[in-house]
């Protein structure tokens, strides 16, 4: 299955069992809807500080393949919509994004940081580069 045949992607790469697609934030919902229709399962979500911007990588398992959808976010306004409306299992992974990278997940039902202690008061999230 190749996502670029069905959805607008700005960049696509395939290697072995892995596929990577960079999509605009506006096209994320369409990409997720297509993967949901294909009965993909959310494997995990990786957040990354790419120095001049942030990246969120959604890893979906589809049988033996892994399809990764990548969206870029500005470092100063990292807002991304929750995907729990389509993939309920993503809730804990989105809470990781909030705590460890300071990404605002809009619409998430439970936004408590997952791993950090309640008294963690450093203004910079642990996985942001300084």
């Amino acid at each position, binding site marked *: 299955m190749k996502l670029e045949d069905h959805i607008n992607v700005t960049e696509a790469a395939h290697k072995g069992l892995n596929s990577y697609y960079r999509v605009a934030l506006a096209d994320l919902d369409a990409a997720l809807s297509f993967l949901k229709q294909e009965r993909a399962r959310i494997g995990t979500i990786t957040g990354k500080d790419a120095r001049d911007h942030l990246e969120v990588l959604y890893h979906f398992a589809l049988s*033996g393949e*892994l399809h990764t959808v990548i969206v870029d976010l500005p470092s100063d306004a990292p807002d991304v919509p929750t995907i729990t409306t389509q993939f309920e299992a993503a809730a804990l992974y989105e809470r990781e994004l909030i705590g*460890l990278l300071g990404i605002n997940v809009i619409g998430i039902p439970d936004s408590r940081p997952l791993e950090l202690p309640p008294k963690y008061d450093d203004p910079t999230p642990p996985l942001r580069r300084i």
Partner: protein
Amino acid sequence: MTVAGVNERGFAKLKVPIGPSHPALEEPARFLFEVEGEKVVDVDYEIGFNHRSIERLCQERPFSKIVYLVERICGICSHAHPLNHVERVEDIADIKVPERAKYIRTIYAELERIHSHMLWAGIAGEEIGYHTLFMYTWREREKVLDLFEMLSGNRVMHGCNTIGGVKWNISEEQARSAQSALSYLDTTADKIAKAVLKDGSIAERGKGIGGLSKEDAIRLGAVGPNARASGVPEDTRVMCKYAAYGDFDLEPQIANDGDVVAQALVRLAELKQSIHLTKDLFAALPEGPIKVEYDEIPPGRSVGRVEAPRGELIHYVETNGSRFFERIKIRAPTLANIPSYVPKFLGCQVADIPIIAASIDPCFSCTDRVTIIKGGKRTVVSGRDLKTGRI
């Protein structure tokens, strides 16, 4: 314990915290149960009491040290983590690993599954008061640890994986000893299965306890034996055919209902399956080198899965051409299995909480700081130290 309200029959609803210290098992997680009498009506959970910032540390260390670091994520899956990590790096650098190394990696992975499932059977027995089962399985599990010691020199941290292959070869004499030990373990697995599955009191104690429907398992993203106990036929070894798994025919072991008995059925079937597979691996061990050299790791990314004893383990690795990784992300199987606790606990009796908590074979591991002991002096590293690299 606090009073949360009164139900329609005038009985108090109580909130009962369990954990974070030793909530049924020796790992930190906190559960907050709301109970009416003895019945659980709501549950919330909290993890992160042992978060060690390993992903951050992986970006702060040269890549040659990361294989050792990821090996220390888990004391039981101490082969699954480095196996996934080196496979990701080898995928990025297009390193062709020798067949013998793939087989040796698979042997370690299956021995790890054998001792982990035996450990689970013991803990599950302990949680329902069947101490004899605990004593028996843990005594027999020592045989697997002895095998590890014979093969690698270590019982827990094997240091087997390296980028490009493995570090420890297997001699013919070791293979013969291992076959003999595995034959013994095959008999042991039959005895454990008989002790668990033919015992009327275990069937009564575990049937219908902590159930999870197939629909809920899929909806909540459950993985590994926890999902397979609910009838989800997903096994990464079968689907991804990493290491040497492509050379063998494996069937995912599944059961129905997801309750404690189903969890036992799946793990005991996998215990037998892994023993037979390991014997086949030793018998078919190809000749040849165990490691290839590589020049450098180019920029790139790779994400992949291996079947750890507790389920699907995901590693994402991104390189940038330098000595340091750009990003390493690890999704341990227990994180995917935690949401399935909610339907498992709802409606259960308070006395069933420990066995349900232990039934998914959880392994909580995450923290906010790390203690370094250097020259006898202890220093606690803060989040700021980690970010600035002052360690």
